[in-house]
């Protein structure tokens, strides 16, 4: 995994208007706020440009652009300088809002659009797999969240039931 090189390619894609907006998510996104964790890929959430004459958005433009530059496809991934990168579309209002409100960090001088900690935590709550719950717990335990902002997101996106269940399951025992 080489994050800087991946970011340079993604930023160039944005400059070349292949993607409108992007935000780094997954384990790499979380590492902007938490301790580093191992991951085998980089998740990039993007707002796709619909192709002319097509109503359904497609990642084809991204794949074509990267293929022209010599990057290989491996299943659902594009391998950028040895790093598997997965492009993920916005799949609902929560991720769309997250993309809108993503913040720019700088990594060795390279700009990186990253979801806020609160949006990453809310997306983890919504996705709800074991590893997402573990990540959400890290956000809470490490005090990485603005609690009011996180709860506002949870409420607005109808995630209160999942949050209450999560609190009962994981937080009630924390001293």
């Amino acid at each position, binding site marked *: 995994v080489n994050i800087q090189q991946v970011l340079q390619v993604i930023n160039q894609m944005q400059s070349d208007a292949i993607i409108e907006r992007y935000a780094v998510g997954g384990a790499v996104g979380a590492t902007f706020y938490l*301790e580093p964790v191992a991951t085998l890929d980089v998740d990039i959430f993007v707002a796709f440009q619909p192709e002319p004459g097509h109503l359904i958005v497609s990642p084809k433009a991204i794949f074509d652009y990267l293929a022209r530059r010599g990057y290989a496809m491996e299943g659902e991934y594009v391998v950028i300088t040895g790093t598997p990168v997965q492009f993920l579309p916005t799949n609902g209002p929560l991720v769309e809002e997250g993309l809108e409100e993503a913040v720019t*960090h700088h990594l060795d001088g390279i700009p990186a659009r990253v979801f806020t900690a609160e949006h990453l935590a809310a997306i983890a709550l919504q996705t709800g797999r074991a590893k997402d719950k573990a990540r959400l717990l*890290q956000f809470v335990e*490490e005090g990485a969240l603005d609690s009011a902002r996180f709860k506002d997101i949870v409420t607005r996106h109808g995630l209160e039931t999942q949050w209450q269940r999560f609190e009962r399951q994981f937080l009630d025992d924390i001293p």
Partner: protein
Amino acid sequence: MSFDLQKIIESKRALRRKLASKPLAEKMRLLEQLSERAASIKRARSASKSDSK
């Protein structure tokens, strides 16, 4: 050092906080090292699985 589980958990939590507060570039270098280690383990596991077939 002790075998007090509560202390062990608390020291792990403290280490995680310390790592989380490191500069971003250093955290990404650690992530890259961890990921390489995870990939090596995955490769070794795949190799031993195919050896046992």
